[in-house]
């Protein structure tokens, strides 16, 4: 029960203030269409440099939690999900809004997010320390395979083409080698002064997530405003919403269980959690035909699932360094910047920071619900911000955020070039998440690869492919790719059948 011991740290004035600001800011960022939680967390990392590690992680965790919930606001009100995790929410949330029940839908969204979120964080609290203990048994070979597993799973499960996901992950690993060899110290691929010292992870994170959003926003800037249909907000008692929400035990249970389970699977993310929970709730409903027409259970299941996913997505991140979602991959960057490396040290050497962060996630769920319910009525204004204004704001934040990392204009150039290339790559089917993960895990992978070779001497093959943990992780890598290939083939068959009809 170590987490109780550090609970007071969350309520230290500075930490609590950061938690409150992070939650409110996250709700507003989440409510803004086009600003994803991943991009919000990436843009915020440079702002946390001046903070101590606990405060900085509290800020990032609060924004992560609140943006996922806040994304439902634009989904319900204007039928544009604020984040991919909220796609399932709009299926019934927007029809409810069109029927004049927008306030009620927003209430269900925040109350369900709170319930699902608390269950998810409790799982994080109880599952993380024992898993971290397991990581003690890992040597360079095991750590190398774990890093490869992280890249393969986020590359293959993220949706779209598996091969393209794996290529993106491998390109991320390659990009991480620009700069110096971590063991021999030799400079590599530095063909311009701007790349001296390599590609800074934060500059890359901001560029890869923010610049494609800017280009997407300006791509549809002038035409989209007129097409958006805004729902009117009516008055509805919070207590009535609360009582009704609590009574929907089946939808809440399905959402929380599915969300927690999917959150633990590295790479799966909130989008899958929300959609699977929605689908299961619909299938188990007495009246499945009501779904899609404004059924509150659809909102409750989807929102409890996507917030239940947040806590468990940090379990593999904090123990093994494998993020459970793209946003968790960005959080990994935040951890490493603060000198915190995933594994058992987090719960021994850095116990205070780690438990304060985890406890803040629990308190953050409550704050998210309270502020969400309070500002739901006003968040509609955020959804009306013109796209070109939002794009301009993101450009400025990205440039200032990147510059402040090392006071370097070169970082800003790298950020812009990577981001612009990523936009075009995304239009031909490549995703930013595996590339970012490859970039983050690259140095860890190479260091363990080279150390393993030194330890192994002439028998490198035997060293990397022997041992039970190595074999298990290799099998997991193969299974994750095989499963993804199998599900991609299913998708292709279904799409072709649809095209044929």
């Amino acid at each position, binding site marked *: 029960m170590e987490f109780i011991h550090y609970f007071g740290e969350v309520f230290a004035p500075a930490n609590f203030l950061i938690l409150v600001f992070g939650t409110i800011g996250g709700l507003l960022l989440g409510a803004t269409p086009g600003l994803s939680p991943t991009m919000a967390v990436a843009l915020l990392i440079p*702002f946390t440099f*001046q903070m101590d590690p606990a405060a900085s992680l509290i800020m990032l965790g609060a924004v992560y939690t609140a943006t996922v919930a806040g994304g439902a606001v634009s989904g319900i009100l204007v039928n544009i999900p604020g984040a991919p995790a909220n796609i399932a929410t709009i299926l019934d949330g927007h029809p409810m809004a069109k029927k004049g029940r927008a306030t009620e839908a927003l209430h269900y969204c925040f109350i369900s997010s709170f319930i699902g979120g608390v269950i998810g964080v409790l799982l994080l609290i109880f599952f993380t320390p024992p898993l971290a203990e397991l990581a003690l048994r890992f040597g360079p070979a095991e750590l190398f395979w774990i890093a490869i597993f992280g890249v393969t799973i986020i590359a293959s499960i993220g949706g*779209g*083409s598996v*091969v*393209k996901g*794996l*290529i993106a992950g*491998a*390109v991320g*690993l*390659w990009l991480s*080698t620009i700069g110096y*060899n971590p063991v*021999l110290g*030799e400079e*590599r*691929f530095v063909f311009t002064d701007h790349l001296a010292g390599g590609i800074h992870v934060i500059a890359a994170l901001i560029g890869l997530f923010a*610049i494609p959003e*800017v*280009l997407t926003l*300006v*791509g549809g*800037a*002038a035409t989209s*405003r007129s097409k958006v249909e805004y729902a009117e907000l009516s008055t509805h008692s919070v207590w009535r919403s609360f009582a009704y929400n609590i009574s929907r035990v089946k939808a809440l249970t399905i959402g929380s269980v599915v969300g927690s389970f999917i959150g633990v699977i590295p790479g799966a993310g909130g989008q899958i959690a929300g959609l699977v929970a929605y689908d299961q709730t619909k299938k188990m409903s007495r009246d499945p035909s009501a779904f899609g027409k404004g059924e509150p259970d659809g909102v409750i299941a989807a929102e409890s699932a996507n917030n239940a996913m947040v806590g468990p997505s940090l379990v593999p991140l904090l123990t093994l360094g494998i993020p459970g979602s793209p946003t968790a991959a960005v959080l990994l960057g935040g951890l490493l910047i603060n000198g915190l490396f995933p594994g058992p040290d987090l719960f021994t050497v850095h116990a205070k920071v780690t438990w304060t962060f985890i406890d803040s996630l629990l308190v953050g769920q409550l704050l998210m619900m309270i502020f969400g319910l309070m500002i739901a009525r006003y968040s509609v204004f955020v959804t009306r911000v*013109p*796209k*070109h*204004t939002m*794009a*301009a*704001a993101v*450009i*400025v934040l990205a*440039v*200032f955020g990147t*510059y*402040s990392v090392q*006071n370097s*204009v070169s970082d*800003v*150039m790298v950020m*812009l070039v990577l981001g*612009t290339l990523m*936009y*075009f790559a*995304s*239009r*031909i*089917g490549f995703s930013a998440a595996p590339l970012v993960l490859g970039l983050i895990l690259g140095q860890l*992978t*190479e260091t363990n*690869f*080279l150390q393993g070779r030194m330890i192994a001497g002439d028998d490198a093959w035997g060293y990397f492919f022997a041992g039970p943990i190595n074999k298990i992780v290799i099998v997991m890598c193969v299974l994750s790719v095989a499963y993804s290939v199998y599900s*991609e083939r299913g*998708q*292709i068959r279904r*799409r*072709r059948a649809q095209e044929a009809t």
Partner: protein
Amino acid sequence: MRIVFGRRLAVALLVVLVAGLLFKVSYFQENLEAYLFPAVVAATVLCLSLLSLAREAFDLCIDDFQPFPIGRQWPVIVIMIGGVLLIDTLGMYSTTFLVLLLVGYWYSPEEALRRRLVQSVSMAAGFSLAMYVLFSILLNVQVPRGFLI
């Protein structure tokens, strides 16, 4: 249909070319020991890109190409690159103002030019001021100073 197939093949070929380039710069080095990991990774990228090309050639995957309205996007790309090149000369805040003004003016849906200009100047001034307060006053980040501030 043939255009889509040709486009997919062209994309896959482009990926193979880039992968080949990565492999060339990683593998053909004097001190291969220092380049061992990037060489292994580049070889993996090359194999995967060839697999992707084969899948496209045998029509084993779906078309995931999304069009990009480059006609609407090139101005912001030019403004961003121009802005970065001007940071050292004009300073961070003047450049920020200029970039915001240009983006705001160019992409504003407002048709009346004067109103459009007033809105863009207000937005640029507001954001620049907010950035100044946030970075120079609150976070104390040293940014390049040049023209005006």
